[in-house]
C-alpha cells in the first residue's frame, strides 16, 4: 500500500523471462475461459496475477503448470517453445505450483501428501525404499516454519483444518520450488500469523532468484510483495503495471472489473 516496504523489491526487468506465455486461449466445450492472455515471469521477481472471480486466473496458471493444454497460443520456457504434457513434466522443469484446490489426497497422511510424487528414498538398488523418518521430520519442520504445529505427521489431510491443509500445499511447493513458484490464492484460508509467514517466504525465495507468480484477491497482500501486476478480466488481460506505477485504489478498481462496489470503503480504509 505504501512504497516504504521492508522488503527488497528486485528490479529484475532486464533479465530474460523464464516463462513467456503469448496469446493463450483456453476453451472448455462451448465455454471460453481465456480469450488471449500474454504474460511472463522473470527470475527473482514476484509477478502478481489479479482479477475478479471467474476472470480466468486459475485456468491460466494451470496452462502454465501443464494441467491444461492451451487451445491456442504459445509458451516459451527459457526461450524454447515448451510443451508440457503432464504436470510432472512441468515439475521436472522446475515449476512448483500451489493449486487453488490444493491437490491433496484427503485420505493420505500429511507427510505422504507433502512428498507425493517426489518421495525421498534411502538404500539403493533393490533395497531402495521410502525414507519415512526423514520425510516425517522434513514435513513437520517445513510446516513449523510456516507457523503450523501439527499434532503428528501421520494425521490424514482430510481431517486437517482448512488453513492447515493450505499450509501443507504451500510448504510443499516452497520446498520443491526450483525456478518458478506459482501460488494460486495461497493465503485464502490462512490465519494472520501464517499469512505473514507466507508473504515473508515469497520475499525470501524471490531473493534466491526464483520467479514467483502470486494470485490474490487481497490488494494489500499483492502490493506488499509484488513487483509487477497483471490484471485479468473476463478471460482477457487489462494490462500489466510495474510496482510504483499504480496506486492501490487504481489497482482495486481494475480488479473489480471497473464495476461499482458496495459502499464500505470508509470502514476498510480504501482497500478491501
Amino acid at each position, binding site marked *: 500500500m505504501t512504497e516504504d516496504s521492508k522488503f527488497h523489491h528486485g528490479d529484475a526487468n532486464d533479465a530474460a523471462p523464464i516463462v513467456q506465455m503469448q496469446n493463450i486461449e483456453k476453451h472448455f466445450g462451448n465455454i471460453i475461459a481465456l480469450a488471449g492472455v500474454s504474460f511472463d515471469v522473470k527470475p527473482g521477481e514476484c509477478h502478481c496475477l489479479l482479477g475478479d472471480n471467474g476472470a480466468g486466473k486459475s485456468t491460466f496458471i494451470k496452462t502454465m*503448470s501443464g*494441467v491444461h493444454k492451451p487451445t491456442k497460443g504459445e509458451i516459451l520456457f527459457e526461450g524454447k517453445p515448451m510443451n508440457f504434457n*503432464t*504436470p*510432472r513434466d512441468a*515439475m*521436472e522443469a522446475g515449476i512448483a*505450483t500451489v*493449486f487453488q*484446490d*490444493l*491437490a*491433496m*489426497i*484427503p*485420505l*493420505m497422511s500429511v507427510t*505422504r*501428501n507433502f*512428498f*507425493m*510424487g*517426489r*518421495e525421498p*528414498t534411502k538404500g539403493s538398488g533393490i533395497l*531402495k*525404499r*521410502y525414507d*519415512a523418518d526423514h520425510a516425517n521430520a522434513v514435513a*513437520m519442520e517445513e510446516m*513449523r*516454519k510456516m*507457523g503450523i*504445529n*501439527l*499434532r*503428528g*505427521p501421520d494425521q490424514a489431510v482430510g481431517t486437517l483444518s482448512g488453513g492447515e491443509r493450505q499450509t501443507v500445499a504451500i510448504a*510443499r511447493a516452497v520446498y520443491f520450488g526450483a525456478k518458478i513458484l506459482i501460488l494460486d490464492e495461497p493465503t485464502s484460508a490462512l490465519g494472520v500469523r501464517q499469512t505473514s*509467514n507466507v508473504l515473508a517466504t515469497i520475499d525470501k525465495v524471490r531473493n534466491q532468484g526464483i520467479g514467483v507468480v502470486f494470485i490474490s484477491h487481497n490488494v494489500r497482500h499483492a502490493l506488499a510483495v509484488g513487483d509487477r501486476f497483471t490484471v485479468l478480466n473476463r478471460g482477457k488481460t487489462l494490462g500489466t503495471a510495474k510496482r510504483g506505477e499504480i496506486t492501490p485504489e487504481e489497482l482495486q478498481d481494475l480488479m473489480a472489473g471497473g464495476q461499482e462496489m458496495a459502499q464500505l470503503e470508509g470502514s476498510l480504509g480504501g482497500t478491501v
Partner: protein
Amino acid sequence: MSDTSPNVADERLKSESFFAKLMKRPELGAIAGVILVVIFFGLTADGSMFSLSGFMNFMTPASQLGILAIGAALLMIGGEFDLSIGSMVAFAGLFFGVCVVTWGLPLVFAIPLTFLFAAFVGGINGTICIRSGLPSFIVTLAFLFILRGLSLVGLKMATGGSTQLRGVRDAVENDWLAPLFSGDAFPGLFTWLAETGLVATFKNGSPKVPGIPVEILWFIVIALLATYVLLRTPAGNWIFASGGDRNAASNSGVPVDRVKISLFMLTACCAALVAIITVMDSGSTDARRGFQKEFEAIIAAVIGGCLLTGGYGSAIGAFFGSIIFGMVVIGLTYTDFDQDWFQVFLGGMLLIAVLFNNAIRKRVTGER
C-alpha cells in the same frame, strides 16, 4: 518460530492404547473377523478342520484366491477394478497349457511367456481405460467376456473340439522348475516329521500332510511384498495417491497413467500365477476355470478393508480377507449343516464378520 516440538506431548491429544493404535491400521482390522470365524468353527466344526491337514486344506483355496485378491486390492487402492481376472485365469491357463502340451515347451520358457502374455493383455486393458477415460468396470467387463470366450474357442482349437485340455501333468513331470509352481514344498521334512510322529499319518504310514502346498508360500510372499511396496516405497505412495484423487495426484506430479497401467499388468500377472499353479496341480484346464474369481477377489479385498472408491486399503487386509472367505467356504464341509443352507450360511458369516470387524474398530478407535 515455535517451541512446540512434535515429540513433546501435545495438550490437544488424548493418550491412546497400543491396541487402539493397532486397530486403526487398515491392514489389521480384518484380524477381528478372522478370530471370530476361527471361534465359530472351533465350536461347530469337526476337530479335523484345525488339524495340520485341515489347515492346509482351507489355506489352499484361500491362497489361490488370496493371490488374486492382493492384485485386486492393489488395483482397487489405485482406483480401478479388474473384472477380467477370473477369465484371465482361464485364458492364461489355456495359454500355458498350449505352451506345455501342444508346443512342448519346457517350463523355463512356458512360464515367462505366460506372464508376458498376461501382462500384455493387462496392459491393453489398462491402456483402453486410461486413453478413453471410460470406467475400468465396463472395459474390463468387456474383457471378462472376451477372454472367457477366447478360452473356449482356443480350447476347442487346441484339443480339436473338447473344452478340456489334459496332459499337463505328464508334460511337466520331470521339469526342474515344476516344484516351484506345483505340489507341496518340503516333502522330505514332512516325511521325517511323520516318522518322528510329529505329523499325523494315514493307516498306510504316509504323512497326512505331504508338505506345504506351494500356493500358500506364494501367497505369503506376495502379501509381504505387496505390503512392502505399499508402505515402504515411492511406488506405494503413488498407488494410494492415484486412487485417492486422480487429478490431485497428477497435479502433484504422480505419473498416474503409468501407475494404473502397471497395476493392471500386475493384476493380470497374479491371475497368470494362479493359472499356472492350478493347471499344474490339476494337470488339466477347462473353459470354466476361474469362473467368478474376479468377484471373490474383490469380496476378499473389501472384507480386508479396501474401499471400492479407491485410495484406501492394504495388502495384509486382503490377505486376511481371503483367509476369512476361504475358511467360511471350506469350513461348512466340516460342520453338520445341510448343503442347501450353504449360501445362507456363507452370506451370514460374511456379514457378521465385516460387521464385527467394523464394530470392534469403531469401539477401539473411539470413532463415532
